[in-house]
């Protein structure tokens, strides 16, 4: 099987990298092209760019950002944020993305996943799933975590994979930005329920957290703030994962 992947994520707003806690309180964290090139040089296995612009004007920069990053990036690039239609996805793929992540629009209209897979191939289609703990389980949340759906997160992941998602980017809304570790039971539950790869997201602070999520069944780990703050590098994290007995590309 492929090695476990370490995937830096750039949240981009109006063409700049930002970071925040639980989807709010955004702070500037640099130029996306510089960040992308630096993380690729550190050994990142892929890159994710999520457009978190609040306005359509801001979102208009997304394709430009993707194109500028693509020019320098020789590893896979996933992009998402505000993708509602096949044409939205086509614009990002033409600009240079290899995969497109859909979130709210797929919850509203699950048939979007099948249409995207039919047009672009399922390996291009990523379901971005934000999940919040509710009782013993998890529910999908939308609108940057402000709105809960009645949808069971594990059941939704399974349906999305059946409909055409080729990968699931699974974010714990409870852990995102907290640096208290990934929600490993969530990662285990979704990884066991689907055939497609799962990327764990939300809560990473140190290599030990990454190893926990991978041991729980995730195929890849998404990291953001610990890199943006310069606390560690992709290379250091991968060395620690290898030392912990997990196969990574080095």
């Amino acid at each position: 099987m492929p090695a476990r992947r370490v995937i830096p994520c750039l949240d981009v707003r109006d063409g700049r990298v930002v970071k925040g806690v639980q989807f709010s309180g955004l702070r500037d964290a640099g130029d996306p092209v510089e960040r992308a090139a630096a993380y690729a040089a550190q050994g990142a296995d892929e890159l994710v760019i999520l457009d978190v612009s609040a306005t359509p004007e801001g979102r208009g920069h997304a394709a430009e950002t993707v194109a500028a990053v693509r020019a320098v990036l020789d590893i896979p690039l996933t992009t998402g944020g505000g993708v509602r239609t096949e044409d939205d996805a086509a614009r990002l793929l033409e600009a240079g993305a290899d995969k497109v992540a859909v979130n709210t629009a797929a919850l509203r209209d699950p048939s979007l996943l099948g249409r995207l897979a039919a047009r672009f191939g399922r390996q291009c289609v990523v379901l971005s799933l934000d999940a919040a703990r509710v009782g013993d389980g998890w529910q999908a949340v939308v609108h940057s975590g402000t709105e809960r759906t009645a949808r069971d997160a594990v059941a939704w992941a399974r349906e999305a994979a059946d409909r055409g998602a080729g990968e699931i980017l699974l974010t714990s809304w409870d852990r995102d930005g907290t640096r208290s570790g990934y929600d490993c039971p969530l990662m285990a539950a979704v990884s066991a329920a689907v055939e497609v790869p799962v990327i764990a997201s939300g809560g990473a602070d140190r290599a030990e957290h990454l190893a926990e999520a991978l041991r729980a069944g995730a195929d890849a780990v998404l990291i953001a703030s610990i890199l943006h703050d310069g606390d560690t590098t992709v290379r250091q994290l991968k060395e620690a994962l290898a030392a912990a007995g997990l196969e990574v590309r080095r």
Partner: protein
Amino acid sequence: MSESGPPIADPAGDVALVATGAANLASVTAAFARLGRTCRVVDDPADLLAAEHAVLPGVGAFGPAIDGLRQRGLDQALRQRVEAGRPLLAVCLGLQLLFEGSEESPDAQGLGLLPGRVRRFAPGLRVPQMGWSPVTTSGGPLLHEGWAYYANSYRVADADLAGLQGVACSTSEHGGPFLAALERGPLLACQFHPELSGSWGSDLLRRWLEAPCPPAA
């Protein structure tokens, strides 16, 4: 530079990307741009034959892709290129189209330039296979050992490679060995994505561009 007029356009100098309809070409185009080469999408058989270097890219499904090639007569042009030993790079689904058929579209006939069939990964594995795996050397001049990036649900299993003669093969593992890539002169077919495989992939593309090849007929 000539002073008698504007520079003469040399479309044959572009890397020709075979139009397969749905394929996303931005990453391939960017990878060649980093090597100083421009790309051009071709959907005319004559243009495909004239180009020095041609790429058969591929995402999407086997059946629609081969139908799209046939409708434009590109299947014959690809066959001619391969039989004449002209440079061709086939990527991902592009590699699969060179074979006789695929479990993905059981009724569709592939180009049949190579014997064998493409099959889905065994049950119980993560599918699509998404990520980086070690690749063995083929023993040929192009395919060295390294790490390559994959995004595929179907592959040619190692057991189905017995009928392949005169080509050098590399393999990777996902629930058993499968065909990672093969080479025969300037024919290079990769199940992985060289354009997304970092500097190792870029070096492979450079070696392919620089591989010796016969001139156009």
